[in-house]
């Protein structure tokens, strides 16, 4: 990774400015994010760390357009995401984002290949194209031979690799991973991380990853620390803030 300033200029892929998120109302209100400013450039691999309750998952959901901020601006390639409708955000996810979750979130009783081609269905690809792209994505995560096995026949590491294949099959600009190794043992976890690093290097996919494990975060080029809904530290990996 190039040791540039993490606060990039106008060429940033993603820009968060003064993002807040409040849950609940009145007395019971809880501010999960209180003024987040963050810029992410194309091709970065960013790890978001922090203790639980620090707002890192909330930030991740907002970055993934799965949730909307209470206030502040979120620009994705210059587009104000906070002004988009539900359906427009769905289209943004469809065309630019890929997701990997801690719990894999594959469809039950469905083969790896069918799981991977799911996002393509919503992009209107033909059956032929879906099939080939899905197999290609499975090949890139090393699971081509398991294409026709259902989720329950795969190990946790394999399921997460299917999930990664599903996330990258649409060739997204950004891959968002929420604790991708959280449900895996350390060996499988490192395999998954190597896969993600490879995706980032070979395919130039921007990766945003939430984790609380320092050795997992160490794979990233840049680490952002959240504490109490604020960014406490934002540094290129290896530097001390």
């Amino acid at each position, binding site marked *: 990774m190039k040791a540039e300033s993490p606060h990039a200029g106008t060429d940033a892929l993603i820009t968060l400015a003064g993002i807040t998120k409040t849950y609940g109302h009145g007395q019971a209100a809880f501010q999960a994010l209180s003024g987040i400013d963050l810029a992410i450039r194309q091709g970065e691999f960013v790890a978001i760390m922090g203790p639980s309750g620090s707002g890192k998952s909330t930030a991740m959901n907002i970055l993934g357009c*799965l949730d909307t901020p209470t206030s502040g601006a979120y620009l994705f390639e210059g587009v104000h995401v906070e002004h988009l409708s539900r359906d427009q955000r769905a*289209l943004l996810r469809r065309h630019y984002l890929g997701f990997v*979750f801690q719990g894999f*979130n594959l*469809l*039950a*009783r469905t083969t790896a290949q069918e799981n991977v081609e799911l996002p393509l*269905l*919503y992009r209107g690809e033909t059956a032929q194209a879906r099939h080939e792209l899905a197999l290609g994505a499975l090949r890139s995560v090393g699971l081509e031979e398991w294409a026709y096995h259902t989720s329950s026949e795969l190990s946790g590491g394999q399921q997460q690799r299917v999930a990664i294949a599903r996330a990258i099959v649409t060739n997204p600009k950004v891959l968002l991973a929420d604790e991708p190794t959280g449900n895996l043992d350390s060996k499988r976890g490192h395999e998954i991380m190597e896969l993600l690093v490879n995706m980032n290097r070979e395919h130039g996919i921007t990766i945003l990853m939430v984790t609380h494990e320092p050795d997992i975060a160490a794979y990233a080029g840049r680490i952002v620390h959240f504490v109490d809904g604020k960014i406490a530290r934002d540094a290129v990996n290896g530097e001390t803030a």
Partner: protein
Amino acid sequence: MMGWTTLLLALREIRRNLMRSFLTVLGIVIGVAAVVTMVTLGNGATQAVSDQITSLGSNLLLLRPGQRLGPGSSSLGAPSFRAADAEAIKSQIGSLTAVAPAVSRTTLVVVGSKNWATSVTGSTEDYFSAGNWKLAEGRIFSPTEERAGKAVCIIGATVRRELFTEHSPVGDMMRIRQFSCEVIGVLAAKGQSAMGRDQDDTVVMPLRTVQRRLTGRLDVTNILISMMDDASTTQVINQVTALMREQRKLADNEDDNFSVQDTKEIAKALSGTIGTMTALLGAVAAVSLLVGGIGIMNIMLVSVTERTREIGIRLAIGAQEKEVLLQFLTEAVVLSAFGGLVGLLLAAVACYFLASLLALPLIFSPGINLLAFGFSAAIGVIFGYVPARRAAQLDPIEALRHE
């Protein structure tokens, strides 16, 4: 995502959740089949009764002792009729074709080593025309035999089947209680009465023979009166009533201690009863449809957790709410329509076999088929769709976290 893809996707989902799909379809199939079968058979029964009315002949009156104000009211205490009453009616009232006094007794009849309990009726030769009976073979008794009280009998098809072999029973002897009688004729089969009684399970003998040898009394249980086609039923009933009051020496302030019933009216009342039964069975079946619906609802609600997560996944990877809903709606419609069609098919098969088993005419009613199909399809679609819609309206992250 256009039509075909949606349909294919829905089919894939149905196959993926085979058990859930099967149970949903089963609920609909049972509901639809039950309602349609019950109502179709009920309509058939009603039709059978109206056929019965036609077969009775339109102009039969039944004179009975006692007042029958309603079902179950007794004729106890009211004096019986005598053969002379029938003769009086025949000689004094015009526009009648037959008047038959009848007395019946259930008794055991024996032929060789076989015996059979049946209803033995004593009457006159008018009985056959009044009751619309035809002979399959042999003859009926003559007026001479009737007057002489000869031991001759005409047997119904059921008695023939139970007691005799292939060969013609005409000329054979049959023992009834202590006496023997000669079989002179066999009646053509009539089948079940509207009440479900086997009309062919009968033996007919001259009135006098039964009175003398079987009942030991001169009483006549009832009198069948058959009118001409152009006779006025009301007028004849009035004449018969007046005549009977006179015969029985009733004072003006006394009530009738007998009743004249138009068998057509009895049959009409009966068909009304069957109509009520049909409605009742239909209601029971409707409950089963409802229970089937609740079953579908349960299955759908139980699977809501899994479906909510699935919807969350689909939304997260970029599906729009309307696309998810279209898919779930298609799935619900396909399942419900399939279940409904199988239900109708099953009902058709069940009706076909049950109707022939119960000897009922098969009447196809499009109305009930459409109604049952529509109702069950609506349940399937609503309960398949509504939970999905709720889930699809959640934030994707909310749906994904659903436990």
